[in-house]
């Protein structure tokens, strides 16, 4: 409903390190992001984010997660290793939850937040309980009761 105007606005100007990979409709977009500094964990890599917009976007947060493209494809896209990113691409980030979301946020501001989340990280590890979470989680991303306990990474 509100989404069209703000999404088309995004296409006019895209911040550095961020590129639109797919934006044919207003239900799902894919974005490619890169880190802007020389963090060895993520250097020379491009990652793909999938945005799914509900009918209430931007009052409700979009669903955002990393998706994988095979290493053999034209555009290899792995899931970045990060203590807040599960190996199935689900991201534990406060601003993507109902409570942390503000309708003022945009696709580009979310991308930039995730960029800086990667930039600031120095730990080459997955979240604790990654394998259990990946095999058992069937909930929608915004309903997962993440605990945002550590703001350092």
């Amino acid at each position: 409903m509100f989404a069209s105007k703000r999404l088309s606005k995004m296409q006019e100007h895209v911040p550095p390190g961020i590129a639109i990979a797919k934006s044919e409709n207003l239900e799902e977009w894919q974005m490619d992001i890169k880190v802007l500094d020389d963090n060895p964990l993520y250097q020379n890599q491009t990652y793909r984010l999938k945005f799914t917009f509900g009918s209430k976007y931007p009052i409700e947060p979009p669903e955002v997660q990393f998706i994988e493209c095979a290493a053999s494809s034209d555009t290899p896209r792995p899931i970045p290793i990060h203590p807040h990113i599960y190996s199935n691409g689900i991201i534990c980030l406060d601003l993507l939850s109902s409570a942390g979301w503000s309708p003022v946020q945009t696709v580009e501001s979310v991308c930039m937040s995730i960029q800086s989340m990667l930039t600031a990280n120095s730990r080459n590890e997955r979240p604790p309980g990654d394998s259990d979470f990946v095999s058992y989680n069937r909930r929608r991303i915004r309903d997962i009761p993440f605990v945002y306990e550590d703001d350092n990474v």
Partner: protein
Amino acid sequence: MDSDGEMMSDVSSPDDFLDTQASDDDSLGDGGFGDLDTGFDDDNDLFRQQRNPHEVEYKVLNPAEVERERQDQIAEVSAVVGLSPELAAVLLRFGQWNKEKIIEMYIDYPERTLDRAGVGPVTEGRATTEMIPGFLCGICFDEGDDVESYAMRCDHRFCVDCYRHYLEQKIKEEGESARIRCPGNNCQHIVDSQSVELLLSGEIRDRYHMLLTRTYVDDKENLRWCPAPNCEHVVDCSVKKRDLRRIVPTVQCACSHEFCHGCSLPDHQPAPCTLVKMWIKKCEDDSETSNWISANTKECPRCQSTIEKNGGCNHMTCRKCKHEFCWMCMGLWAEHGTSWYNCNRFEEKSGSDARSAQAKSRASLDRYLHYYNRYSNHEQSAKLDKDLYLKTEKKMTSLQSQSGLSWIEVQFLDTASHALQQCRQTLKWTYAFAFYLARNNLTEIFEDNQKDLEMAVENLSQMFEKPIPELAQLKVDILDKTAYCKKRRVILLNDTAENLKNGEWSFNVEW
């Protein structure tokens, strides 16, 4: 025995942060436990006149009274600090409704308090929507001089449509009311009720107000909803969370449901909340299976894993630790030599050691089952008594016609039935409580009291089941027994509550 009129103030320090309930209006005299009538005839502002050690002071409020209490507090703070009632409400919610503390904080540091509460700088004037030239809504990106927009004091301005959708989403989908923040990114400003009034109408606004009242009850430690289905009452009791180690605050709602103000579970006197939780958890884990385990399994003599032998020979190899032993004598298999299929080595040392370890673990299971069986027996009997209670009414009518007694005169059955329910409930929890008690002189007294009550209850229960024609003759007897049961219950509860309050009990677990 004296009832302790000042029990609460003994336990809570008067200058506690959350202690907002002034208790100067209580007029509790000392008295014995002559008050055996637990019936309530008035749900308004009724304090019990006489209080036993196991009873606490409380008050039942209906929804209108809760709302009035809330409004009174808002009005008071609003008048003292000179803010609008809407902002005073935000402040109060921030300070968990501790009036004195809020007023003090506001007077000392007005700006910082407002800021932390999410009120922000206060400016004059009523909230209105505006049309501002060159406005661009940060949510829908609509722009134009004719777009109606709204901003709170934080000056994050959005178009009225977006603001409305945002509030509707928060109220309807997320059930929020008191903690809705400004839609602006990272803005901590709380949307006050004046703004909601301005932007929303009808059903959704009513829902907002309902949720607000609800958060009031949720926020205040001394208020608790009656957990009975469809009951809208709230019980006000000033027992603090940290006092729950020493008090079991049982209250009775106007709907007659008796529950614990500390944890909302049905009345669980004499056991304190923490032990009740431990017990319930233990029973969930253990009870169903432990009987079967006790009958069909043994533990591995080395790693204590529980093993079921489902066929085969006596040579056991533990799946977990690979220990090899004989199922019959529990001794090392290596010592068995060639007598593979029948064990005649019962007296060997390795076997008897293993068996004594086994016996120990069995003994602890047996101990648990001892208490559990009695606990669940009373639970079961209470259910049966309840069925009986439903038949009581029928009994009373037929008793009336057969014996020529009046309706008032057959009320004794109703009283007896209620007493049975209550005593069984208490007995049930005495067993959970006893499970966690370390043995000493006090437990002997406790067990005597328990035994007396149990005998009284079983006697009454037995009489209660007599055929109808006999009941009329037993009236005096039943009345006596009912009174006796109630009295034994009060004695037991008072004794336990006194000891709990004074920290006299010793337990076999940390809690």
